[in-house]
């Protein structure tokens, strides 16, 4: 029985290892633009381009988990520390599947000065997740004498009262959510003057002026001009230059740039258990190896 279990385990382990190796060479091939056809049939069959979420990957880990448990109860594993290692590893895999299935992960994009309702982004949109978040300022600290960033910090105001700081490697907790400083972007703003009226705009933006429609579409980097659609007619305008469009004097000037903080939010149910199980695994691995040395 022990030999059969061991051989089965090694076969499954071999298949899993080979597929994992191959999968690292096919990152999302089927989802690349223009690559919906022409993907190697074997790659598609084995789901190598999306292996980690495939039933093959989950199935193989499931078989390993079952074998880990069965090996303990059939006496294939002899010592207490080895039995604990096998059971703990099986529990780790089960908790990982649970955590990955149950927990959600999503992104918040906040421009400086912008306020959002957190509940609008949560999966259940529950009133219990009621929280307003305002990005007061986004800061990039650089190493002295270098352009290399040292820290990205979002200065957030929660519920219009509490000011908190969110930085890389320094997450925030709220109920069963954790907020992580993931990345940042920049949003450029412009001053649009139409006759005597002034508007603050970003790209793209839309204005209604009396009965006319003005859409600030984008900035053409080749011609170095703004692309503007006025009453369904496209125009190109040089920054800072006043042009006459259908009797209106229009000027567009760059105003400045605002940072956009990209915050990743993750639910954290079950993660604490995973940490404890991992530490127990390491402890009993150490004990098993030390006992083996003493023999």
């Amino acid at each position, binding site marked *: 029985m022990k030999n059969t279990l061991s051989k089965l385990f090694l076969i499954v382990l071999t298949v899993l290892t080979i597929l994992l190796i191959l999968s690292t060479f096919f990152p999302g091939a089927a989802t690349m633009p223009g690559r919906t056809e022409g993907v190697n049939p074997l790659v598609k069959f084995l789901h190598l381009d999306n292996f980690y979420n495939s039933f093959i990957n989950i199935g193989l880990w499931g078989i390993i988990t079952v074998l880990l448990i069965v090996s303990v109860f059939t006496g294939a594993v002899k010592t207490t520390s080895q039995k604990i290692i096998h059971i703990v590893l099986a529990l780790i895999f089960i908790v990982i599947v649970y955590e990955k299935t149950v927990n959600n992960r999503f992104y918040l994009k906040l421009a400086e000065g912008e306020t959002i309702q957190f509940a609008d982004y949560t999966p259940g949109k529950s009133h219990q997740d009621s929280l307003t978040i305002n990005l007061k300022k986004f800061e990039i600290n650089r190493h002295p004498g270098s352009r290399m960033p040292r820290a990205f910090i979002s200065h957030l105001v929660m519920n219009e009262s509490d000011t908190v700081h969110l930085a890389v490697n320094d997450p925030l907790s709220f109920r069963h959510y954790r907020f992580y400083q993931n990345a940042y972007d920049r949003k450029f703003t412009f001053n649009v003057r139409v006759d005597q009226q002034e508007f603050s705009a970003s790209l793209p933006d839309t204005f209604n002026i009396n009965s006319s429609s003005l859409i600030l579409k984008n900035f053409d980097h080749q011609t170095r001009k703004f692309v503007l659609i006025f009453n369904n007619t496209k125009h190109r305008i040089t920054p800072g230059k006043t042009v006459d469009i259908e009797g209106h004097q229009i000027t567009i000037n760059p105003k400045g740039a605002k940072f956009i903080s990209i915050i*990743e939010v993750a639910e954290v149910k079950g993660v604490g258990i995973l940490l404890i199980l991992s530490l127990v695994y390491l402890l009993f691995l150490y004990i098993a190896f030390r006992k083996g040395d003493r023999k």
Partner: protein
Amino acid sequence: MSAESILLILASIAYVISLFLFFKEDTEKNSRMVFILGLIIHFAALVVRSVIAKHPPFSNLYETMILFPFLVGSRYVFWKKQIPEDVRWLLILLTIILLGFAALLPGDMKKAEPLMPALNSIWMYIHVPAYFFGYVSIFIAVLYSIYLLLTRKKLLDSKKDHLVEKMDREIKIGFFFLNVGLITGAIWAYVSWGNYWSWDPKETWALINILILTYYFHLSRPNVVKKAIVIIITFISILFTYWGVSYLLIGMHSYT
């Protein structure tokens, strides 16, 4: 030429002289003294590097390639009695070769850079050294495995058993620290990115190394040849994890 480069060159010269003395003289004493001198100079180079970069030398490929031979050399100096005399010269040679590889890296890869925000964490000082302790042990196990494969028919059984016991111990140390590295890496990823496992190529290959090494503990009727083959395959996998992933596959660990 920087002070760090000068010190590394001096350390390399000392290691080469040490290797020469190992074979030339009857006792290991002088060879070891020169090697220790080289190790001290090597340590000074690492300190200089740390002062200039304002962080310990394990944030990129070049820094880990000058740190690794230092750790290998330290094993030879501080744990000499655990390493049989027949293979000690291999450790000296390995130290020289690894420093040579580091010297061959392009100049722009050797430039000292401050840490980017993602690396600015206490976990870097736990996760990276854990892996390096593991890699050093597996490196030494590889030396044993190659030596045993080449000489197993000539060796006395008692000597062979002694070497296999040493090899087993190195693999246990290596396996333990690979697991510590994986788990601390997952904790760090959770703290930084909110996701302890995202099937990043580096993460996946770190797991693959552990899966391959798991064979070692589950071999039926294990013998020297089977064990040696598993160790060598693990070693090739580790080489790919260390170098291949950074250059051939793109992921969050691309800076390493």
